[in-house]
């Protein structure tokens, strides 16, 4: 997961002085109950994308893995970590096959976001923030990346107006300590200096959960999050 690797790298930059005692919080996100079946998406109206998906893809609101693991959950330090600056590197958000890749990205407030169109058709990127200015731009094929920043932390729903099934999320955070649960719902927040942390897990449909974790010295604390699946 590119975002995560890079966030580790970023964290290293920030934390090199205390690297000797760097703790790690890692764990797994799971769900209980039966989540609603994700519906297949018909891309009939966009042939160039349709032919890229011989098996129709489904909506990505709830992505589950083996043994009840839940993916696309943003796990981050909501309190306790030093409020580092935004890293210089940009986060890239790609539109390919009329899908957002990845479905959820996390970035730091003020960090550069590059939106890239990898398709042969025009896309329209329309984030709907609450506390940041809203914008709505189209991107023809071959057009340069759209470069934007968000100054306030929030979770922003993103849509493509031309292809209404395209839906993604920008998790704009005040910290560089974040991870997005992937393959098997696992996550890991490395390079944490000793201290008391609040870890928050956010899911676009199931909401948020928090846990208190204390890191003393060079250790790896493991915590798990478990969300209750909604019937509808």
């Amino acid at each position: 997961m590119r975002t995560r690797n890079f966030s580790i790298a970023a964290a290293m930059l920030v934390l090199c002085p205390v690297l000797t005692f760097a703790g790690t919080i890692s764990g797994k996100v799971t769900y209980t109950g039966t989540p609603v079946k994700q519906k297949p998406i018909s891309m009939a109206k966009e042939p160039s994308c349709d032919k890229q998906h011989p098996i129709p893809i489904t909506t990505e609101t709830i992505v589950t893995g083996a043994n009840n693991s839940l993916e696309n959950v943003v796990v981050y330090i909501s309190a306790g970590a030093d409020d580092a600056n935004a890293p210089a590197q940009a986060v890239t958000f790609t539109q390919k096959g009329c899908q957002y890749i990845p479905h959820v990205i996390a970035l730091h407030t003020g960090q550069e976001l590059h939106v890239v169109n990898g398709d042969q058709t025009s896309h329209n990127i329309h984030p709907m923030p609450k506390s940041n200015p809203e914008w709505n731009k189209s991107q023809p094929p071959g057009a340069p990346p759209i470069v934007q920043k968000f100054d306030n932390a929030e979770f922003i729903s993103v849509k493509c107006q031309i292809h209404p099934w395209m839906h993604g999320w920008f998790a704009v955070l005040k910290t560089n300590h974040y991870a997005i649960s992937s393959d098997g719902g696992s996550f890991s927040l490395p390079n944490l200096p000793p201290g008391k942390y609040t870890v928050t897990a956010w899911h676009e449909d199931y909401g948020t959960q928090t846990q208190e974790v204390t890191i003393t010295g060079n250790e790896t604390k493991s915590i798990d999050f478990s969300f209750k699946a909604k019937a509808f």
Partner: protein
Amino acid sequence: MSEMSVHAGPHAAPTSFIRKYVFSLDHKVIGLQYYGLALAAVVTGMVLSWIMRVHLVWPNAPIPGLGWLSKVGAPGGVVTPEYYLQLLTMHGTLMVFFVLTNAPFAAFGNYFLPIQIGAEDMAFPRFNMMSFWTTFVAFCILLSAFFVGDGPPLSGWTGYAPLSAVGADAGPGQGIGQSLWGISIFVFCIASLLGSLNFIATTLDLRTKGMTLSRMPIVTWAWFITSCIALLAFAVLLPACLLLILDRTAGTSFFIPAGLNVADHIQPHQGGSPLLWQHLFWFFGHPEVYIAILPAIGIVSHILICNMRRDMLSHRVIIYCMMAIGFLSYMVWGHHMFLSGMNPFSALVFSFPTLMITIPATIMTLIWLGSLYGSNLRINSASLFCLGFISMFVSGGVSGFFLAQPSIDIYLHATYFVVGHFHMVMGVAAIMGVFAGTYFWFPKMTGRMMNETLGKWHFYLTLIGTYAIFMPFHYLGLAGNVRRYSAFQDDFLVPLIPVHKFITYAALFTGAAQLIFIFNLVHSRFKGSPAPPNPWECTSLEWSTPSSPPPFDNFGGQHPVVHHDPYQYGVKSSTGDYVMQTSPEQTEVAS
């Protein structure tokens, strides 16, 4: 309103440059200013149409320089879907309001109506000046939309609510851009009202001795009838724009119904009626078509008579036809709304008067053709464009047969058939009238002749080009090609793209041909051969002025006296085969 009384006296000739050429009260200068404004607008509008045509057939091709011109609208020079619609909206608005309303009506009307009735100036010169400069302001407001926020509006020149009313949620340009559009049209309405008021009062009150209503040339009548139509039409669009602006800015709900979810934003409105906007707009919108075409009809008849060296079989019938059309134009607005949820019965109610308009239109055409028969037709740039006008008027007219019938409209509504129809009948035809007028009156306006050879080439290329562009539109429409699409992706549209390629080439070609005209205009203005006082041997008053261009008060401190009906041709007289309206000479009309 009582403003008008004070200026109604003959005003002294100005001396300062500003008063002479900028804030001039002289109807001739104001007419030229209108002409210049229309020229600026038509060039802009044409360039926009070029960009659109190119984008349609090469959707992903970067257009050189465009990326620099509009970073948001065309990143890297590739036109975005919204930018296409924004260009389309601006093209329509510029052409309909600032070209088709200004050039044949305001420009030529201002210059020649007072002269043709033997007056020193308009009835209210200061109103006249205000009306031009208000139009200019409207023009600037509209163009400024290119440079604000995310660009001009994208809801088309008809600005259908709620798309035009809900604001930025509806897409790029629907924020401040759309507001500027509304304000611009609002201001334009005020200007047009002042203008028409001036035309009407002038025609009714400032006619010189002997210039009875029945002795006014056809074109004077055309301007007069047009100003009557415009007065009522713009008086309706004005409040409509006000309500639209209030919906956008003050949170009222005239046009916005409840429970709209636009781009995941629930709109804080309720109870408005989108159809209300359509009714108000088209009550203006359809008469507007005739505001564009009637002056052209007048100009063409006037010039044709002079070049046929005979009166029309009956030029009065043409005037009556124009009146009939003007009257009918207020009973047909619903034919734009057959499919927008009106009571299906009212569709028929609107359909019949629409079909009725065919009758006066046919009568006029027959009179033109019948008058050509046995005439001594002179072929020059002006008369050629008149003939071109007739051809276009017919071509665009017959396609009206189809659209006037609700049953066929079910299939053809909102296809390229409609686009072809109105571009031919109100776009190209009216513009041909303007070209004819320009070639015909240029000697009077500048004292120099235009180059005839260039003029004829300009005509032939324009005629071929415009047919090549707009005839295929009809067949695209019959194939169900939907209009206002920024790209053709649907399975049934892709096979039509070659036709669109052809049209694009034709459009570029025709546009290039207009450069001949621009060159001719500029070159002749300075280097053209000096014009005799009455180069076309025409009878109406504008050719009786002591000089070309006419002196400040048109007739050098004197007042012409009119003795004849406007078109005394084919007679034996001291001057040749015609008698000036101002000449006391009595002759037998030999016909």
